[in-house]
């Protein structure tokens, strides 16, 4: 029976630990807003610049801000998850957690919650700035935004679980993967261009990535004013597989770290 026990209080303890940390460090809070804001301004001005030229390019450019903001949900969701995990590694606190009654499922639940907290702190002010400076209201996408948001977050957590497992198994030497792995998907998920832009042989790979369907769906909504429910369902189905793979890889890598003794040697 205890094998399936799940304690919301333990999840709450881990969330509280990261809230305390964020409250104690204004640079950490500032960083959550800084990069999204800088990039939003860059893409916003680029969109305005390109829109001055007539033709198809101007139509595509109208999706840049939406594309950037959705990409940032994907990227910041994963970083938010991975950063909370890395904080435990940096502070050499992981063995304390691993010998406590905290379960892997509770730990993951807390990291997921913290990814949403960090994402909200960073993205909400930036979406408001986008309305103010560029007249682009991400929230006006309404229910479609909810579908995009959920699918992107599911992918970000799956990648976050995999990255965390790698860092557990291989130590902080694998930390850079937590920062860079998502960029592998940037060209393949077709954030700023349609899937048909890719060589034909790459397109099946692109469609195997859940965010591709989200970005295609976003373009259909912004350019053609059509909500593609089929794409969202495709993304949801893929995400179910990705989350299962992420959870499985985390469990396996945690087991491997216990076999290799790396939990006792947290560091480089």
């Amino acid at each position: 029976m205890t094998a399936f026990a799940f304690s919301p209080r333990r999840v709450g303890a881990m969330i509280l630990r990261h809230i305390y940390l964020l409250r104690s460090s204004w640079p950490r809070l500032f960083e959550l807003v800084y990069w999204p804001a800088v990039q939003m301004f860059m893409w916003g001005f680029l969109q305005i610049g390109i829109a001055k030229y007539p033709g198809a390019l101007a139509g595509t450019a109208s999706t840049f801000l939406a594309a950037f903001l959705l990409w940032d949900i994907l990227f910041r969701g994963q970083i938010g998850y991975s950063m909370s995990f890395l904080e435990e590694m940096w502070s050499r606190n992981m063995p304390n957690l691993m010998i406590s009654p905290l379960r892997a499922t509770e730990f993951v639940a807390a990291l997921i919650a913290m990814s949403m907290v960090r994402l909200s702190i960073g993205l909400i002010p930036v979406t408001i700035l986008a309305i103010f400076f560029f007249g682009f209201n991400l929230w006006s996408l309404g229910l479609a935004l909810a579908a995009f948001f959920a699918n992107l977050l599911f992918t970000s957590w799956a990648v976050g679980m995999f990255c965390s497992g790698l860092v557990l198994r291989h130590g902080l030497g694998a930390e850079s993967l937590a920062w860079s792995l998502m960029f592998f998907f940037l060209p393949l998920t077709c954030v700023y261009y349609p899937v048909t832009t890719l060589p034909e042989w790459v397109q099946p790979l692109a469609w195997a990535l859940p965010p591709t369907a989200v970005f295609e769906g976003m373009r259909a909504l912004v350019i053609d004013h059509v909500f593609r429910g089929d794409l969202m369902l495709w993304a949801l189905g893929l995400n179910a597989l990705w989350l299962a793979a992420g959870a499985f890889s985390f469990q396996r890598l945690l087991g491997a770290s216990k076999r290799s003794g790396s939990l006792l040697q947290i560091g480089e």
Partner: protein
Amino acid sequence: MPEIAVQAEKLTKHYGEAIAVAGISFAIEAGSITGLLGGNGAGKTTTIGMTMGLVTPTSGRVLIFGADMARDSHDVLHRINFESPYVDLPHRLTVRQNLRIFGMLYGIAKVGERIAQLAEDLDLGEFIDRPAGKLSAGQKTRVALAKALINEPDLLVLDEPTASLDPDTADWIRGHLERYRTRRNATIVLASHNMGEVERLCDRVLMMRRGEIVDDGSPNQLIARYGRQNLEEVFLDIARERRHAGEMAS
């Protein structure tokens, strides 16, 4: 028959070709203080890691209060705690915040009261609202001990509990551990390089060398067996692979 707190059965750990622990077996009675002694690389930390479930044995198993740590660790983790100088608490959080979080993780009902009690017992009051990363070595050790005692564990595992402490603070910590054991009838497993500490605290010592237990007894028994004046001399004999007096006589 006394309750067995820790039972290791043919416990083995290989890291590739290297043998860290070579099929050791031992049983530790509840309410005792047992020291794990050995030179660097003797296998103490790996043994502790396997005891706590942080390292998976290559073969063999560890039972804590009857629960197999490879399968059923969550049945007993609330009864165990651990302190090591190689493990830290989050630096930016205050002592009180850290203790609150671990109190919640261990399911302590009245965390505030428990923290107040620990602050009094371990004299944390002066720095309880200071970030854990800004404390002196002695203060950090007291905080780490407070974390390790937050759940009043039945089994307390300590890896070098007084490393890098001045003699006064180290003595104070040892006194606290003795009182805790007496008050709670707790089991303490202690890895240390401080022979005076082991002689003072431990009812029993497991001497390790190259992943094996090469001798086992109370500090006085070991000193007599090797014909030495103190445990430090026994440690040197074992580390340098000199045989004890009985073996040499035969």
